[in-house]
Structure formats: C-alpha cells, structure tokens
C-alpha cells in the first residue's frame, strides 16, 4: 500500500510521471539467490586452499600467561599458526567509519587477544591446516596458560566502584574533572536544553520508570566467512561477506600495517548483516595465516562463534522521567542511558541519546549516556544502533504518561510532535520531515479503531533514525548494443542493486531489464563507504543518478554530431534523441543506435561520479501492534501489526516494505524472546538458534506496511533511508501491547513467558 499524503518540496527528477522509479520489477540478483547459485562468503574455493580456525578463550576475563603452539605445529597437515605476536602492536588511534567509530588498538586486540582475554570466545590463536579436522586437532594441541581474573557482565555491576576493571588505561571521558582512577565507564555524554528542575516543578503530571533491555544479536543467517591469499610479492586478495569491501580493505591494512594498494577485496554475496558486518573478525587473521604459509586460507565461523565473538548490540539500563501539563504538553524529560559496550568501548549510547527524544518538541530536557565496558563480546552496529534501546524506554514512559493523563497515546504523540522548522533534540533544524503525516497514516488506518477481544492489548510506539549520506562512487557504462552496466561499491544487503538499476534506467530512459547492476571489488570502482546508516539508495543512488545524467548529456552531444545539429537542438526523451526542430527532418536516434556509432563520436560511452552526499533526510516510523496474552502460560501471540513510515520516495516499494517487515520481525524478537544469557562464569549459555530465539515465521502475523512519501528534495527522486527506522518502535509497541493486555506495566525485555506469568501472579 502506498499513500501519498502530502507533497511539499518536490524532488528534482520526480515530475509525477516516473516510468521505472516506484515500480516493482523482479530483483536482478533474485534468480541466483533462489536457485542457490549466488556466491556467499563460504562458497569460494581456490587451488591449494587450506582451512583456518580460531582458538577462543573459555574464560570471560583472564591474563594470558603463555601460549605454547609447539605440539600443534608438529602435527602433520598444520601449515600456519598465529597469535597476537604475529600482528603489529598498534597504538591507540581513533577512526571514523560510517555509522561506527572505534579505536585501532581495540579493533586489533578484538581480532586477536594480546596479553589478556576479555570475554568468553575472545580469539587467542589461529591455525591453518590442510583439513578441517586437522585444524580442530591442532587447536586442541595449543596450550594456553591463563590466570583467571574476576569478571563482570552486567552493565550496572560494571559501573560499580568495586567492579573488576577491564582496562587500566580507561579513565572516564566527558566528566568535568577527569577521574584519577580507571573504571569501566569509558565515556559520559550529555544533551541538555532549558531548565529541567523548574519545568518538573511546574508540571501537572509526571511519570518515572526504569527500563531494561538485554543484549541481542543481529542474527544474520550467514556466518562470517572469507578467503584470503597473501602472495610472495606482498599483494593480497580477500573475498569476504561484509557490508563494505573498502571497510575490509582499510581495516586489514591498518591491523596488519599494509598498503591499501596491495589489498584487493572482492565482496561476496551477503547473507544478512544488519550492521553486524561493519567490522573485521576473520579477514586479518586469514591474511596473517596466508602470509605465513603461502596458501590461500579459508575461514568460516560456526554459529557458536558468531554468537560468542561477533555482534551483538548493547544491553541497556535506562531511567526516564517525563513531566507534562494537564493538556498533554510535555514540558520536561530526564533520560539516563547506561549501555553495555562489551569488551572495548564504543556502545551506541551516543546515537541512543541523540535519538531518544528526537520525535518530540520538548523545551526542557536532559539526556545523559554512559558507555560501559563489560566482559562480553564487543558490540557491533545493529540496525539503527542504540535507537531501539532508548526508544523502548522513552516510548514505554510515553505510554505511562498517556495513561496517567487519560489521553489517547496517539494524540499525545501528535500534540508533542516535531515539525519542519523545529530544532531537533540532537541539534539541527528539521526540514522536509514527514512525521505528522506518518502519525496521521496510523490514525486513519482501520487497525487503529478495530475492536479488541479478551486478553488482548494494543500498543503504539514511534521511532526516529537520522539516515546518512556520505562518500560513494558509481560508474555507468553503455554497452555497444545500447544496454547499460551500473557499477557501485556497496554490497547489496537490502535490494540496492534493484534500486541502482531503476534510478539509472529512469534517467537513461531504458527499461530496467536493460540495465545490469554490478557490485565491484575495491580495485574496480572508486571508494565507497560501507553499506550502513541507510545510506546506499540515498548516497550511492545519487552517484548513479549523476553518472546517468552525465551520460545523457554525452548522448545528446553525440546525437547532435550524428544529426549534424547543435547540441541545444537535441532533447532526450524516453531513451531517444529527438531534434527539437521538426522542420529539419532529422530522424530520432535511439540509445542503441548512438551506442553502435560511438566509435564515430568519441569512443566508449561511460561516466563515473564520486561524491560525498549531503542532505540525507531523517526517517520516522509509527507502529501499532495488537497482542493476545495467554494469562495462564504467559505466552504472547502477535495478532496484528501495522507500521507506517516516512520513506521520502520508495524507489522499489516492495523492497521498502520488505525492509519495514524485516525490521519489525527483528524488533518483535528483541521484545519477546531474544537475549544473551551468561552463566556465573561469564560463559554464554545460549550460543545457538535453539536457545537464542529469533522469531520463526509462524510467530508473526502479516506485517502491514504503509509507505508515507514526503519527498527529500536533496535526493534526485526524493529518497530517504528506510532500512533502520523500522526496528526502532517495535520493542515498545509490543511491550505496550503486552502491558495493556495483562493490565500491568512491564518494563524489562525480553518479555518471555516466565516473566509475564510471574507479573500476572504478582497481582
């Protein structure tokens, strides 16, 4: 369903008569994927290839006293063994990479532990051998002498002054006075506006609560996998599944101290990432092993390794206090966010803070965030990093406020909604946002007034994500038969091949089937930031569009030569060059014709555009969820789910709907059953899809997505990022529905049956 509710500033190329953009063609990568021909990270095999495997720490926190690899090296079939000693000992250096920022020393020490292991599953050594079973045997022969240290896995326990300290060099940043003792609090951040104390004093109604979420994994189906080959002359090749081949190149270069020109990274097809494949785990290790033995090395994580050593996102402990006037005007908000970063600093608490109140126009607020290290896997980006966690707290508090005011939850959101021209809680002034239209889309949907049965409840929640632009390169080449190839540097994780081809086809005036989109390796296309931040359709799409426009200009010039008229006499109409002056009697020239004659007009036809896309439009989602709770067993059935989102312009509406449905599915899992469970020794107890419970198909109703299109005029077709917003509201939408169904407020995720039954029994 696509509802165009309002058109404010139009997008430059959207004249209301688009022929390709906005349609639903079959995806160009679809046939290979459904027939099993697509090459994923684990599918490549090379002559002489050996198998790499990683030895992982069984302890949550320990000092590495010694590592003895002699017996493993002596095992026939073992080709290489590496430990931290085989990697440069990098100094602390901050880097920026798309949505995530980090520290090179931490990145390196997460790839391979140096002196100390910081979580169960931390890599301590790796072997390469001629077979998988020999590699397993070799791992068992490596003797690591550990001195086990006290550990801490819970975020608030880690903040306690007597908690075991993970990093002796960590002194909390962001305080007025830098402390003289190290702690597990890496950073404190703060956003404030107005006079909070005065505002609370004048509020007619206040609500206050404490909310918690568990650490959850991105849950991509494809485990991390790569093949790496280090040649005798120092040239390296890497084939891997990731969200950015250039990111892999950069990180491998940094971690191994290599030159980028000597590393060529070819992106494999990617079986899900959701942010979790925006960093490296295996690639530098595979290169180090290959350097030692001269063979190509293949590494594929097991599911157990994926859970214990990659991902997840933060567990969070939040408090929210809201103050409002009796008419529902929110005057004050006090938000404290404590996010678990895992073994190294860098939780998404900054983004969680910036998004926490982004849907609301509140004159007085304070948002304080803490980034806290724990003896758990280092968190990785997960779809709108941080936003779902803080939104769970704020949107649950909003539900409580609506109840206390006796106000409709949607009316409370409408009353306090941000609009164009307002200054966002995180700084900039909103332009061309479609939030109010999105709220209206839910209000006018039949779901909103549908009756509920016994033990059923309805929950509403809203969510925000920035979306980003950034650096992208795209090339468009016209083939001699008049078809086209679109080359970009962004792995296709959400249907971006289709949207790239569609935008190029629209500009060139070709049917989309005549445009072949390709994701190229790092040596075959210019730099592009990774696929993340909901940036690809916006930023890389902008590069594709501009390259296509350059080609159209070139085609007009060439047509003018062939027609022997001046270029200003030529129009480009639906893929055909037309002479404006009909009296000249010039025949129209098709793209195929011009392509065929390209040798006479200057040679091959192609254009490349590299840009740093600015003006990405933020996105808003409004979700409505109905559940039924079995009061005896505590089981939750999600009965109905409707998600409305401002998407700017849906280039391929089916894939936008797919993004919304996928985000909701992940959010429902986060709300109801997903969680990292650690035993008393800090060992993860549920490192597999049996006991780490993502929703199965029968757990979900059909998710109804409503596309609200308020154009972003900074994109040629009006697109806004769409992939991340839909995971922001579901945690609270589901939670608020469950609370409504049982008539009791639940504040802790996941809302698994034992927790719900216990809450019901507590009376």
């Amino acid at each position, binding site marked *: 369903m696509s509802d165009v509710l309002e058109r404010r500033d139009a997008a430059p190329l959207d004249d209301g008569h688009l022929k390709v953009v906005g349609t639903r063609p079959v995806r160009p990568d679809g046939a290979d994927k459904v027939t099993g021909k697509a090459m994923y990270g684990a599918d490549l095999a090379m002559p002489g290839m050996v198998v790499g495997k990683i030895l992982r720490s069984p302890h949550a926190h320990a000092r590495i006293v010694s590592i003895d690899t002699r017996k493993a090296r002596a095992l026939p079939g073992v080709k290489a063994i590496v430990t931290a000693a085989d990697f440069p000992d990098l100094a602390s250096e901050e880097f920026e990479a798309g949505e995530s920022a980090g520290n090179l020393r931490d990145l390196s020490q997460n790839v391979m532990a140096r002196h100390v292991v910081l979580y169960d599953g931390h890599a301590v050594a790796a072997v390469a051998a001629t077979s998988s*079973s020999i590699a*397993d*045997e070799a791992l068992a022969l490596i003797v690591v002498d550990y001195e086990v240290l006290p550990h801490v896995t819970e975020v608030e326990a880690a903040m306690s002054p007597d908690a075991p300290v993970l990093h002796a060099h960590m002194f909390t940043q962001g305080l007025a006075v830098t402390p003289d003792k190290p702690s597990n609090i890496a950073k404190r951040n703060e956003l404030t506006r107005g006079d909070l104390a005065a505002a609370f004093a004048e509020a007619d109604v206040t609500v206050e609560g404490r909310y918690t979420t568990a650490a959850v994994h991105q849950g991509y189906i494809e485990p991390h996998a790569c093949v790496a080959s280090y040649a005798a002359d120092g040239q390296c090749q890497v084939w891997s599944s990731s969200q950015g081949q250039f990111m892999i190149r950069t990180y491998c270069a940094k971690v191994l101290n290599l030159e980028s020109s000597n590393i060529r990274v070819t992106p494999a097809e990617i079986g899900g990432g959701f942010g979790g494949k925006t960093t490296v785990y295996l690639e530098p290790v595979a290169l180090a092993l290959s350097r030692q033995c001269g063979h190509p090395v293949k590494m594929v994580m097991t599911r157990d390794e994926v859970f214990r050593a990659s991902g997840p996102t933060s567990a969070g402990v939040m408090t929210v206090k809201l103050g409002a006037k009796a008419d529902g005007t929110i005057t004050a908000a006090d938000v404290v966010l404590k996010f678990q970063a895992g073994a190294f600093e860098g939780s998404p608490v900054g983004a969680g803070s910036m998004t926490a109140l982004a849907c609301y126009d509140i004159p007085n607020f304070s948002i304080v965030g803490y980034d806290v290290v724990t003896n758990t896997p280092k968190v990785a980006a997960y779809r709108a990093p941080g936003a779902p966690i803080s939104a769970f707290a704020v949107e649950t508090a909003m539900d409580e406020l609506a109840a206390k005011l006796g106000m409709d939850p949607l009316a409370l959101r409408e009353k306090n909604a941000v609009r164009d021209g307002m200054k966002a809680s995180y700084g900039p002034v909103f332009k061309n946002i479609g939030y109010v239209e999105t709220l209206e889309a839910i209000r006018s949907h039949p779901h909103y007034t549908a009756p509920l049965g016994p033990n059923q409840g309805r929950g509403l929640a809203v969510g925000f994500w920035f979306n980003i632009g950034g650096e992208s390169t795209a090339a468009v080449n016209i083939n001699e038969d008049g078809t086209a190839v679109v080359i970009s540097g962004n792995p296709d994780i959400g249907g971006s091949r289709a949207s790239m081809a569609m935008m190029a086809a629209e500009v060139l005036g070709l049917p989309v089937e005549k445009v072949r989109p390709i994701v190229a390796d790092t040596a075959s296309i210019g730099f592009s930031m990774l696929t993340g931040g909901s940036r690809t359709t916006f930023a890389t799409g902008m590069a594709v569009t501009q390259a296509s426009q350059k080609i159209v200009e070139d085609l007009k010039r060439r047509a003018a030569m062939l027609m022997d008229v001046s270029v200003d006499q030529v129009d480009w109409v639906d893929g055909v060059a037309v002479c404006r002056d009909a009296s000249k009697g010039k025949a129209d020239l098709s793209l195929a014709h011009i392509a065929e004659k390209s040798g006479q007009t200057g040679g091959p036809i192609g254009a490349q555009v590299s840009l740093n896309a600015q003006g990405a439009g933020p996105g808003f989602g409004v979700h409505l969820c109905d559940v039924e709770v079995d009061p*005896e*067993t*505590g*089981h939750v059935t999600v009965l109905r789910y409707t998600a409305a989102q401002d998407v700017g312009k849906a280039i391929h509406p089916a894939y936008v709907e797919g993004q919304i449905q996928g985000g909701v599915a992940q959010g429902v899992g986060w709300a*109801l*059953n997903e969680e990292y*469970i650690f035993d008393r020794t800090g060992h993860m*107890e*549920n490192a597999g899809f*049996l*006991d780490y*419970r993502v*929703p*199965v198909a*029968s*757990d979900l109703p059909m998710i109804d997505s409503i596309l609200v299109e308020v154009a972003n005029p900074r994109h040629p077709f009006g697109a806004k990022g769409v992939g991340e917003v839909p995971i922001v509201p579901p945690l609270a939408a589901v939670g608020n529905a469950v609370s409504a169904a049982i008539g009791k407020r639940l504040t802790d995720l996941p809302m*698994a*049956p*034992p927790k719900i*039954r*216990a809450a019901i*029994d507590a009376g």
Partner: protein
Amino acid sequence: MSNVEFIAPTSPEQAAKALLAGGPGARPLGGGTDLLVQLRSGRLPAGLIVDLKRIPEAIGIRQDGGAFVIGASTPGITLSEHKALGLAWPGVVEATNLIGSTQVQGRASMAGNLCNASPAADSVPALVAARATCLIVGPDGRRTATVESIAVAPGKTSLAPGEFVLEIRLPARPGRSGDAYLRSIPRTEMDIAVVGAGVNLTLDAAGVITEAHVALGAVGPTVILATAAAAALVGTKADEAALANLDAAARAACNPISDKRGTAEFRTKIAGVLARRAATIAYGRAEKR
C-alpha cells in the same frame, strides 16, 4: 567428528553384536537428528555409528490386533501419515510431530527421541501416558520394558552395553479412549519443551473416566508418570473440580530445575495448566470414539 566408523547391519542381532564390540563410543542411529548434532558439537566422542534403518523390523508401523508396533527408525512423518494410528493415538502422533521442522520429521524417530534420554523429549510423555512398551534387543536376546524405565537421568539410559530399542508398542485399547499432548515453548515451533504434558483417558458409556494416565516432561530429570494426577481424574467427567485437582496434583509431582529455558516456579505452574488442558482435549477425543 573425525574417524567415525559407520555400519548398517540388516539384522537386530548383528546390530547388537556390533554395538557391544564398539564399546562406549558405539551408538545406534535411529534417524540421527540428535546423534549427528551431538557428534558434530563434540558432546559425544567420535566412535562407531550403527545405523538401524536397514533392519526390516526397525522401519514401519504394524498393527497387531489392536496394538501398534512402531519400528525404531520410523520417521515422524510416517506416523503422521498413518490413519489408524492417528485415530487411536492422536496424542502420541501430535507429540512426535512436534519434534523439529518438517525436514527433521523426515528422519526423527520416536525411539531415538526416547533413547536420547532428554527430560524434554516431546514424544516421551505421550508414550508414557499411553503405557507404551519397548522391545529391546541385546547380546543376550530380547526383552520388553516400559517406556518410562528407559531414561534414568538426562542423557543416560538403563540400556546395557550392546542393547538398543528395536520397536515401540502401543497397547490395544478400548473404545471411548483418547489421548493428547501439549507443550510450552516461547515460540510457536522449532523449539524444545519448557514443559510437556501427556494425558491418556478411557471413559465408560456415561462419560465417567475409568482409566487415566498423566505424564509430565521437562519438570524433573526424567519424564514423570504422575499417578496422583491421574487418580484425580478417575471417576470424574473431567469437570472443573476434577481439573483443579489434576492441576494441583500435577504441580505436586514436579521436581524441575531453573535454567535458561525457564524457572522452576514457571515450569511447575505450567505443568498444571498443560495437564488440565491436555486432559480436556483427551476427554473430548475419547467421547468421540
């Protein structure tokens, strides 16, 4: 799982001999849906796999008077396709069909589910409530045992070295009998029972329960045959008072642990709920036969 040996004998006696000779690392393979996972994960040491699927008696469902004899390697999908079995023992069939996915059902067997000795095995409470028995083959010949005597602790069975279950026998039963199995999982499928309850009832012409059996899964180290819970139903028409007594007696029979799948308190409460609900379904089925 390096150096695993695999044999597929065609007679029960050959299989027993091979299992005995193979020592502690030797394992019979029914469908393999537990065994292969355990070998791959390293939870079981690599050794000898004795595939039972080539033994004629180990495959298929045979009717013997009113009884059903089910070969040890018969996959769940075969049970679901057997009309007479489904009419007589709908609870046993639905319990077995809950194991894993459609793909897993193509291999997973009831005997394998039983001999894996998990307290959460879905088919076992239904089999225990059905008063099913096993035909065991071993180096010393054949013997019969009750289903509830097989598992003695999580992952441990009473089977002697070289012994394996060749057949499971569901007894003949009178008319006006019905059974049912329910489990609690956080999701809707593809999961392991947090609690399971099987109930098997026989009614007289007036609808009074003359015989009842209740078995509970995942609330103790082995599946529990809850005799007091069953007694709460006998002589009643599964009315509200009887169901409340059943609920209380089922809870009293529980001895669960708290773990990642659920708290002891939750498991105990749910055992009562599921026993009650399964009894209601079984009663409805019995009335119709």
